[in-house]
């Protein structure tokens, strides 16, 4: 039985439909990433799992039971917020212990003066104190236990948020873009830490991000969304090699897949309406299609050697490899009019070739590396 099931779940804010007919199964113990651009509804989905937002229609099931109306505490989930949402007026120790204390509170403990006394007593209770300490040690927070969140660095706050989530040993972990507020280096480090954590803990992780690198490196499965609609549900490898549509193709991979409008002629292929290409194998059976090829599958060759004549417009040197943006040489020469470069075709080349901006070159490819998409719907053609 899958840990979580979404059945035809939709969400409206007033008239505005944020999520449309979402269906998915989330398996026990997997690391599922909800990936998509801002506003696609991924955070809303996460909040619906947690019980922080309600579901307009459809069923959400926890282990088979319909859980639409369950209070957050009944669901037994842990939530790590993008902004960590640590309690600013409590120490790290108190932050981590808070869920445990809340679980230990009896109903009448919540009265105004009683709650202060109860909190102090419970903080000192042996089991709670021990668990807090153990958690802090596991995440290397022990020296920080008596500090307040304001005096911690971003990475440290991140770990406190994780500790607070972990301390209750929940069955489901929900993480809402936890790494977006960290700088690049820290992000890379925390990525591996979270992955390791998942391996250790073995519970189900649902992770929301807009960063495809995070998704690709951490996920066991990815659900890609756009504007409330699922685009593809698959493993990272499949999402990369077999994108379901142009949206996925462009979203995954950096630089994104090159998508060039093409027409199929009896004589061969016409790219961008102007370049005739010798290409006979594996052509789609329609007249118009989108020609898609990943930058690393394009080959950069000197002028005349490749099938596609081009001129270099942009060069990005990344050290171990170089990304070169080219413009096809079509015969029309209006490239100099615009101040910014658009609609470039990107090639990934290893090393550091000596190219200059404006230099002529040519590109080539293998037919089996080309992915074809429908021009109107963007769906992949097989």
């Amino acid at each position, binding site marked *: 039985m899958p840990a979580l099931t979404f059945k035809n779940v939709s969400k409206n804010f007033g008239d505005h439909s944020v999520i449309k007919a979402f269906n998915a199964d989330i398996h026990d113990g997997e690391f599922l990433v909800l990936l998509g651009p801002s506003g696609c509804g991924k955070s809303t989905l996460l909040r619906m799992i947690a019980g922080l937002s309600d579901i307009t229609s459809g069923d959400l099931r926890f282990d088979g039971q319909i859980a639409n109306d369950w209070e957050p505490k009944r669901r037994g*989930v842990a*939530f790590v917020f993008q902004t960590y949402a640590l*309690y600013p007026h409590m120490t790290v120790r108190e932050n981590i212990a808070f*869920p445990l204390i809340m679980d230990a509170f009896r109903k009448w403990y*919540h009265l105004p003066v009683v709650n202060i006394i109860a*909190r102090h007593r419970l903080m000192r209770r042996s089991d709670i104190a021990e668990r807090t300490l153990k958690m802090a040690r596991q995440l290397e927070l022990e020296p920080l236990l008596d500090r307040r969140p304001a005096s911690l660095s971003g990475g440290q706050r991140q770990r406190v948020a994780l500790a607070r989530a972990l301390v209750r040993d929940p069955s489901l972990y929900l993480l809402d873009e936890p790494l977006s507020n960290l700088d690049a280096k820290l992000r890379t480090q925390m990525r591996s830490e979270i992955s390791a954590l998942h391996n250790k803990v073995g519970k189900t992780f649902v992770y929301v991000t807009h960063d495809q690198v995070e998704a690709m490196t951490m996920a066991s499965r990815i659900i890609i969304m756009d504007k409330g609609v699922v685009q593809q549900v698959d493993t990272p490898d499949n999402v990369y090699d077999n994108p379901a549509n142009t949206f996925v193709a462009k979203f995954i991979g950096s630089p994104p897949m090159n998508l060039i409008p093409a027409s199929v002629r009896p004589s061969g292929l016409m790219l961008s309406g102007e370049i005739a290409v010798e290409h006979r194998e594996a052509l789609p059976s329609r007249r118009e299609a989108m020609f898609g090829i990943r930058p690393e599958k394009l080959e950069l060759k000197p002028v005349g050697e490749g099938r596609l004549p081009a001129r270099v417009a942009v060069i990005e040197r990344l050290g171990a490899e170089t990304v070169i943006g080219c413009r096809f040489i079509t015969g029309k020469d209006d490239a100099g009019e615009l101040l910014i470069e658009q609609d470039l075709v990107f090639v990934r080349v290893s090393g550091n070739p000596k190219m200059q901006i404006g230099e002529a070159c040519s590109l080539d490819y293998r037919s089996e590396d080309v992915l074809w998409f429908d021009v109107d719907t963007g769906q992949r053609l097989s």
Partner: protein
Amino acid sequence: MLKVLRYLLIGLLVVLAGFPVYWMATTALSLNSELYGTGQVIWPQLQNLPELWRELGQVPIGLWLFNTLLIAAGGTVLSLTLGSLAGYALSRFRFHGKGLVGFLLFMTQVVPEALILVPLYAMFITFGLLNSLIGLVLANVGFSLPVACFVLKGAMDAVPYEIEESAIIDNCPRFSVLTMIILPLIMPSIAAAAVVAFFAGWNEFLFASTFLMDRGNWPASVGLASFVGQYETPMSAVMGAALVFSLPAVVFFLLIQRKIVAGLTAGAVKG
């Protein structure tokens, strides 16, 4: 040149604003013979301080201030308690009638006290609250509760909602979210709201003078006002008492002026 004018203007404003208080001090430090007979001395005569101290004994300022303190403190506690509940509801929830509630709270700032004076008087007679400090506190809170509510609501609005969501996920019920998470985070605003409510009770005159018959229950405002229109007023003692009465209000207002303005204007704008 412009600068000189500016300083002149500032000097003028300072004189206009400060003179009455200065005069209060000077009058307190004068002898009654000077005040009524020979002509008041313009400079404060500090040598009269011991005399003033003795004269203050004539006026039951101690008892009055004690009553004032009770009234003000009682009103503050009640206003803050109810005001934080209302503020939280307005800040975090959507519910039927929310607009109406906002309007009603706003209304309380428009209603003249004198308007409900009479019905409250009638009500207090019926419930035997007429001569009591408790009744007075209950009447005062009606006006300071909404102010406390708006000040606190403004502060609560600034607390990120995610912190509460985090607490809810951590199994914390809403009421405790308010008491354990939100309130500790808005302490400065609570202090400001407390000061506003406190001095609303401290300064209050109309209700106190109408509802309290017993001289022993009089707060300082009523006690001092009883000297108005008297012929043989021991003016220096009265002024001394008035200064003592004013001092806490002035001190505290100076301390939190910014917050009060923010709270009052926020409430009024939101309506």
